[in-house]
C-alpha cells in the first residue's frame, strides 16, 4: 500500500514540476517580449519587474529565480494592475471558484448517483429512456449554451412572476450560486449517471447479488449494502477528472454569469496578456488539479480493499 501511495505522490510532484517548467518556457517563447511589447509600460514598473524576475540575467538563471519564488509560494506581481500581487488575486478569487466548484460537484455526484440508480432500476422502461436521453443531450450541449439558456429562462421566469425570483448574474447570495453550480455540474452529472447506471446493471447481474437473494435479504438491504457500494467504487475514480472538468468549466460559467472567480480572472488575464497572472494562475490551477487527482487516487486506494491491502502491483 505504501508503495502505491508513494508512487502516486512522486508522479504527482513530477507532473507539477513539468507544469511549472512548461509554463516558464511557454512564457519565454511568446513571440512578443512580455515586457518590451507594444504596451507602453511605465518605466518604473518595467524596471521593478525586470529586477523582480531577474530579466536582465540569462535564461537558466531566470528559471532558477522563478522556481525559487514559486517554491516559496510567491507568484509575483500583476503585469496590468499595478502593485497587485498574483497571490492576492488567487487568495481573493479562488474561494469563489472553489465554492462554486464544490457546489457543482456535490450536485453532480448526488444527482448522478440518484439518476443512475433510478435508470438502472427502471432499465429499458420509460424513466430510463427519458433520463438517458437527457444525459446524452447534456453531454452534447456545451456548458455555455446551457448557461445562456438558463439566463434566458430566469429572465422569462422573473417576467412571468413579475418579481425577481432568481438573479440572472452576479455573486453574493445563495441564489446567485444555485443555477451556475447546476450548469457547471451538468456534464459531470451526466457522466456519473451513465457510469452509475452501467455499474449497477453489471452488479445486479453478478453472482454475489444472487447469493444475497439466496440469503433472504430484503431488496432494500441488498441495494444499500451490496449493490450501491460496489457500483459506487468506480465512480470515485472519475472524481479526479470531474474536479478538472468543473475547474475548467468554471472558466466559461463564471464568464457568462459574471461571477468573480479565479477562472474568469484567468480568462481575462489571457485576453489582456497579463503574463505574470497567467503564469501564476496556470501553475496554481495545474498544481491544484494534479493534487486533486493524486488525492482521489489515494482515496480510492483507501476505499477499495483490493488496493488498500494488496495493491502494490497497481
Amino acid at each position: 500500500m505504501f508503495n502505491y501511495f508513494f508512487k502516486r505522490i512522486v508522479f504527482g510532484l513530477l507532473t507539477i514540476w513539468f507544469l511549472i517548467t512548461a509554463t516558464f518556457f511557454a512564457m519565454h517563447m511568446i513571440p512578443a517580449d512580455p515586457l518590451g511589447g507594444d504596451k507602453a509600460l511605465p518605466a518604473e514598473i518595467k524596471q521593478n519587474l525586470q529586477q523582480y524576475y531577474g530579466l536582465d540575467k540569462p535564461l537558466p538563471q531566470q528559471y532558477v529565480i522563478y522556481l525559487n519564488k514559486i517554491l516559496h509560494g510567491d507568484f509575483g506581481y500583476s503585469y496590468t494592475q499595478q502593485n497587485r500581487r498574483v497571490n492576492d488575486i488567487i487568495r481573493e478569487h479562488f474561494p469563489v471558484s472553489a465554492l462554486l466548484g464544490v457546489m457543482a460537484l456535490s450536485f453532480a455526484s448526488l444527482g448522478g448517483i440518484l439518476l443512475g440508480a433510478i435508470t438502472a432500476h427502471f432499465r429499458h422502461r420509460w424513466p430510463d429512456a427519458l433520463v438517458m436521453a437527457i444525459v446524452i443531450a447534456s453531454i452534447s450541449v456545451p456548458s455555455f449554451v446551457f448557461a445562456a439558456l438558463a439566463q434566458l429562462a430566469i429572465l422569462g421566469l422573473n417576467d412571468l412572476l413579475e418579481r425577481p425570483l432568481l438573479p440572472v448574474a452576479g455573486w453574493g447570495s445563495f441564489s446567485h450560486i444555485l443555477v451556475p453550480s447546476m450548469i457547471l455540474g451538468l456534464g459531470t452529472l451526466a457522466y456519473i449517471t451513465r457510469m452509475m447506471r452501467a455499474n449497477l446493471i453489471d452488479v445486479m447481474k453478478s453472482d454475489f447479488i444472487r447469493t444475497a437473494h439466496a440469503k433472504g435479504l430484503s431488496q432494500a438491504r441488498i441495494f444499500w449494502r451490496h449493490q450501491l457500494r460496489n457500483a459506487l467504487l468506480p465512480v470515485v475514480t472519475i472524481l479526479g477528472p470531474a474536479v478538472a472538468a468543473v475547474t475548467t468549466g468554471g472558466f466559461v460559467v463564471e464568464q457568462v454569469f459574471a461571477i468573480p472567480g479565479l477562472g474568469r480572472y484567468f480568462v481575462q488575464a489571457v485576453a489582456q496578456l497579463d503574463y505574470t497572472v497567467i503564469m501564476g494562475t496556470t501553475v496554481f490551477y495545474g498544481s491544484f488539479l494534479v493534487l486533486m487527482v493524486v488525492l482521489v487516487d489515494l482515496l480510492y486506494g483507501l476505499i477499495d480493499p483490493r488496493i488498500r491491502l494488496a495493491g502494490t502491483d497497481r
Partner: protein
Amino acid sequence: MINRAMQTNTVALSVSDFSVSLRAEGGDVKIVRDVSFTLEKGQTMALVGESGCGKTIAMLSLMGLIPDQQIASVSGEVLLQGAPMLGLTQDELRSLRGNRIAMIFQEAMTALNPTMTIGEQVAEPLIVHKKMKRADAMRRAEVLLSETGIDEPKRRLRQYPFEFSGGMLQRVLIAMALACEPAVIIADEPTTALDVTTQQQVLSLFKQLQTQHGTALLLITHDLGVVSHVADQVAVMYAGEIVEYGGIEEVFGNTAHPYTAALKASTPALQQRGQALTVLEGQPPTAGYVASGCAFANRCDRAMRICTQTQAPWINRVDGRANGKADGHALRCWQYHDANPQKETLT
C-alpha cells in the same frame, strides 16, 4: 393427519409434480416437467444430469430466485418440512431463504461480495433472520468458520474475499449457508470449480457437517464421481424430467435407464480399470423441446417404436409394474415395462 405429522418429522423437502415454464422469445418454454422427489432429514440427494437439463432452473425457481417477469408458470407442490413453499409471497419466501433453506452456488470466487468482509457476509443471515446483534453474529460467524475448517477464524473474519483461495471461499459459502441451521441446503455444483484435492475436502466437510447439524443436502451436479461419494439417493434428470430415481446403491449398482447407463459409462471414477470409456452420441434436446415420446429416444441404442410415441410411466425396477409411483428404485423407460417381450434379456 398422523401420517402428515410423521412426514414433517423426517421429511425435510418434498417436491411433487413440480413444473416450471419460463418466458422466451416465441412463447413460453417448459424447462422443468413434473419433477418429484423426497429429501429426508440429514440425507443427501444428488440431482444429476447434463448441463442445461433444467436442474439449476428447477432449484432456483423453487427458491424463488428467478425474477417474476421471467417466469411464465410454476405448478406442483413443494413442502419444506411440511409447509408449502409455492405460492408464498416474496416476503414470506425471503424469511425462509437463508434461514430454513439455503443455497450454495458454483463459483465461490464471484459468489461473495468483493467489498464486504467475510465476517460481515457470514453474519448477515444471522442479523437478518435471527435478529442477532452484530457482535453476537460475528462471534457466531467465527464459530461457523472454524467449524468449516478455516484456520485463524478471528483474523479471517476481517478479510475480504480476494484474500481467500477458491476452496476456502467454498468453505465460507458453506459456513454462510449453515449460519441459521437450515433444514435444507441446496448446493449447485459446489465442487466443479475446485481442484480434485479440494473437492474431496469440501465433500467430506459436507458429510461431517450434515451429521453434526442434521441438515438435508440437495446436491446438483453433473459429476457422478462426486455423487457416488456423498449421496444417499440419486435423481437422474434428462430434458427437464427425472428419468431414474432411487437409492445410490440401487441406481448405480443396478442401473436401469439407458441414459443413466450412458452417463455411468462416460465417468472414469465409476468404470473399472481397463474398461473403455464410452461417449454418449448426439446432443440433448434444446430447452423446452417437446417430444411426443421419450426425450432420450433419439440417442438411445435400444429405442423401440413406443419410445417415440409415448413417454413411459413410472415403472418399479423390482417388479416391473407401472404403478405410477416413484417408490424405491423407479424409472421411466419402456424397457422395463411388463409388456416388453425383450425384458428378460435385460440385465
